[in-house]
């Protein structure tokens, strides 16, 4: 058994006699799903064996199907395998975490897609539908229709023109009000 430079022996080591690399993981950091995901990537070029030595630990034993004949080259190959596996595990664990965090969103999108695939509502469904409810609350007045939005300007200008007929002072005031309204909008 030999250690790998930069990695503690109790985390990963190479066993040249058995032609394998062994990686021990903290089960609280790496969920089993990430272990499966990483193992699946390696399964075509290596023999992969999983174990749980105790409740807090997971063990992956990786044996390359084709190992270099030269001991030094074989050791280097096994070190590379450990590095690749460690990287793959981090990727899989991170992907798993993102999936967990976005689960609600994924379920909502899937549900919408499923509901959409059911097709348009029938006439009976539309008959039963209650259209009397308000669509939604709009306290800031964002959801104005085009007519509502531009009718105000038109009305303000009309008022301003009426004011011109009355007196020059009131017409100035009306124009100022119309401009102020325009700026607000």
């Amino acid at each position, binding site marked *: 058994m030999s250690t790998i430079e930069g990695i503690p022996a109790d985390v990963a080591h190479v066993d040249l006699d058995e032609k394998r690399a062994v990686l021990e993981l903290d089960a609280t950091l790496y969920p089993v799903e990430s272990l499966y995901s990483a*193992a*699946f990537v390696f*399964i075509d070029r290596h023999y*992969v*064996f*999983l*174990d*749980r030595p105790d409740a807090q630990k997971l063990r992956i034993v990786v*044996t390359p199907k084709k190992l270099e004949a030269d001991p030094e080259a074989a050791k280097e190959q096994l070190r590379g395998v450990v590095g690749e596996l460690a990287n793959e595990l981090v990727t899989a664990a991170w992907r798993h975490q993102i999936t967990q965090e976005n689960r609600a969103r994924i379920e909502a999108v899937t549900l919408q897609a499923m509901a959409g695939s059911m097709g348009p509502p029938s006439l009976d469904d539309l008959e039963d539908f209650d259209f009397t409810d308000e669509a939604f609350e709009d306290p800031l007045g964002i959801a104005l229709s085009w007519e509502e939005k531009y009718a105000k300007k038109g009305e303000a200008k009309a008022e301003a023109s009426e004011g011109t007929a009355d007196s020059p002072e009131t017409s100035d005031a009306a124009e100022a009000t119309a401009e102020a309204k325009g700026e607000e909008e």
Partner: protein
Amino acid sequence: MRELRFHRELYRGESVDEAIKVYAPYATITPVEHETHWVVKIESKSAARERKIGDEMANYALGLTIRNQGV
């Protein structure tokens, strides 16, 4: 003789059984009941052959387990 110990929390029993069925023609494979593991004993003509069959069987059982987990 070679012994493989598949942890019950990591390997599905059905997957191990299926792997045993697939590799049974190549060696004498005996499943043994254990509290925490699915234990499988492999006997064949040589240690190298036992090792090869054990490795292939473990990969097969793991592949089936992962496929059935939907990962």
